[in-house]
């Protein structure tokens, strides 16, 4: 306290020894410059990010409005995507449906599997198995999406035919799993969903694994001391603690599933049919639609594609926002504050 007072106070009190305060005074401004620089840099980075987001949103909206204003169909309910014709008629109904449904199925498949892998690595497997397994999962995350696409088209599709026929026979009554022409190639939204699930498993696994490692040892030992089995330890101490982390991990995976382009474009037999029969080779997604039409698109066609991109942007924002809300609400119960 004394020190700061002398430092702040101007010369008037003369009799003090000169050496000590001087060093203090000299050290302070140096620190402040560093602080200021750091504040500038980190603040600048933050602002840059906001500016980038605003620039993307502004660019998308500007081009999108131009396209939508000339659309002779209803942009939200039209099925087909004809930007070449006069007048142009295009809409996002099929694309929005395909994007959301394939992502939801992919999440439903990938999240439980990923949590399972992550738990196995962190809590069940012997270290000798766990670290190679973790390494392999990391490798999976690094495979480019076009490779997944080729693998999907050449390997997964032919091998999905059997599963499709089985689903059609025993679950055809659900309508969703009914194939209009039994035995048609499995180049469907369902196959795309499975492929997306495989693609996002590594991301979700990696993040959840890190979260599970953060669970305080004391929590787990306390549960063990109370006589809990290993599953009960996981259920009572690990999962509640990691809940918000798992949600974040899932959101990262969902982001990839929503925006996946090449793998979907390679596997899916796209069409402008909104089919609830998920095993039929119909449908489309936003990113796939852009990939299919961009090369030959005219100026106007590009604007229309950008309008589609804008909707995907908004959907992603909404999903991320919702996830943040869930995490914020659950924080108090998660044990993370304990």
């Amino acid at each position, binding site marked *: 306290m004394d020190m700061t007072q002398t430092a702040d106070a101007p010369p008037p009190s003369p009799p003090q020894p000169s050496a000590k305060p001087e060093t203090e005074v000299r050290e302070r401004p140096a620190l402040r410059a*560093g602080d200021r620089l750091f504040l500038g840099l980190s603040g600048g980075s933050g602002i840059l990010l906001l500016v980038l987001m605003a620039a993307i949103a502004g660019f998308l909206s500007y081009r999108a409005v131009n396209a939508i204003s000339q659309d002779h169909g209803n942009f939200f309910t039209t099925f087909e995507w004809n930007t070449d014709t006069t007048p142009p008629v295009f809409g996002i109904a099929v694309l929005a449906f395909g994007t959301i449904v394939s992502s939801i199925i992919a999440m439903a498949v990938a999240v439980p599997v990923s949590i399972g892998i992550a738990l196995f690595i962190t809590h069940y497997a012997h270290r000798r198995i766990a670290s190679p397994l973790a390494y392999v999962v990391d490798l999976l995350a690094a495979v480019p999406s076009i490779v997944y696409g080729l693998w999907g088209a050449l390997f997964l599709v032919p091998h999905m035919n059997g599963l499709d026929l089985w689903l059609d026979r025993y679950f055809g009554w659900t309508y969703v799993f009914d194939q209009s022409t039994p035995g048609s190639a499995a180049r469907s939204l369902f196959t795309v969903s499975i492929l997306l699930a495989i693609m996002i498993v590594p991301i979700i696994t990696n993040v959840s694994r890190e979260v599970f490692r953060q669970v305080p040892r004391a929590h787990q030992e306390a549960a063990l001391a109370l006589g809990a089995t290993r599953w009960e330890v996981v259920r009572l101490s690990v999962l509640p603690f990691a809940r918000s982390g798992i949600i974040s991990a899932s959101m990262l995976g969902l982001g990839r599933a929503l925006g996946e382009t090449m793998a979907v*474009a390679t596997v899916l037999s796209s069409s402008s049919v909104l089919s609830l029969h998920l095993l039929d080779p119909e449908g489309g997604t936003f990113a796939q639609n852009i990939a299919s039409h961009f090369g030959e698109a005219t100026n106007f066609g590009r604007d229309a594609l950008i309008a589609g991109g804008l909707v995907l942007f908004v959907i992603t924002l909404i999903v991320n926002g919702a996830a943040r809300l869930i995490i914020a609400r659950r924080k108090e119960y998660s044990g993370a504050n304990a």
Partner: protein
Amino acid sequence: MKLLRKNGLRATALGALAVSGALVLTACGSDDNSGGSGSGSASAGTGASASAAGSADCGKGSGNLLASGSTAQQNAMDQWVKNFTQSCSGIQINYKGIGSGAGVQQFLQGQTAFAGSDSALKPEQIAQSKKMCTGGQAIDLPMVGGPISVVYNVPGVDNLTLDAKTMAQIFNSKITKWNDPAIAKLNPGAKLPSTAIQPFHRSDDSGTTDNFTKYLIAAAGSDWPYSGGQTWQAKGGQSAQGSANVTAQVKQTTGAIGYTELSYANASKLSTVALDTGAAQPVKISSDAASKAIADAKVVGTNGDLALKINYTTKADGAWPITLVTNEIVCDKGNKQATLDATKSFLTYIASADAQKQITSLGYAPLPENIASQVRTAIKSLS
């Protein structure tokens, strides 16, 4: 402890600096594409000698020619560029197959010396081109003929003949079985199975789709009730991305039928449909058959524009009417001075009978002489 924290802080600051630096760099990196275009001739110097071992006349041209557009003519361009630069080492040509739409776009923005396009210029594009071609406008020069084959995979059926109406009904999912009476009538004696027909079309926009459906519109009448264009409009069937995937799908699906460029059909050894055009004999697809159809085409462009209109309902003997003609797009007047000579000598070379013959083995159709001579005259008058 304090020291440690300070170092940590510094490291973070450095990290932040690095990140923001990288961002700034990326921001700057976006506009480097335009640099090499147009006036890049200075560096290449006057290396264009008169060595001319081949048939190409290098003229006074030199420098770096940028062009882009249609992927349908990519293979032909690659072949021509290879041959041309062997005799004219002073000219570098860089043709990028980025799609017709994007290619025309780049040309209209002045980034390239010429564009390759599957479809003729639209009136508004010609109007737009007047800004770029000072004193002139953009014109189409038909250059590469591409026969579009109809491939099928029906075991036991080696020769299949279809006419436009039947084909339209197949691709519109109106005929769904291979032993349909309409198909049987055209193929007396063939053992047609009762397999379901699985028609395949392109999922991406393409000039191949555009020309295939133009044929159906012209020749099948009310059986093809769609307006056409680069996007596939009919209902039913399956789609695949790009010619390669369509071909692959037909190859691996029993009962499949699809349309693809002749080169893909040849490479995959798929059976191709013979077309009952009303000529004495059903027409088998070949480069020659396509050239015959192009010879029957009409020039519909005006003011020096040579855009062709294929006569899809031609009954000429041995003419295969499902043929795509891709154009090169240049300014008739007001081409960039720096690249004009090089552009002219390259275009003159590729329009020559010799160069046209070379691409036949790649599955293209050479321009017939009546069209090629008009193209050569037009190239001579470019300025």
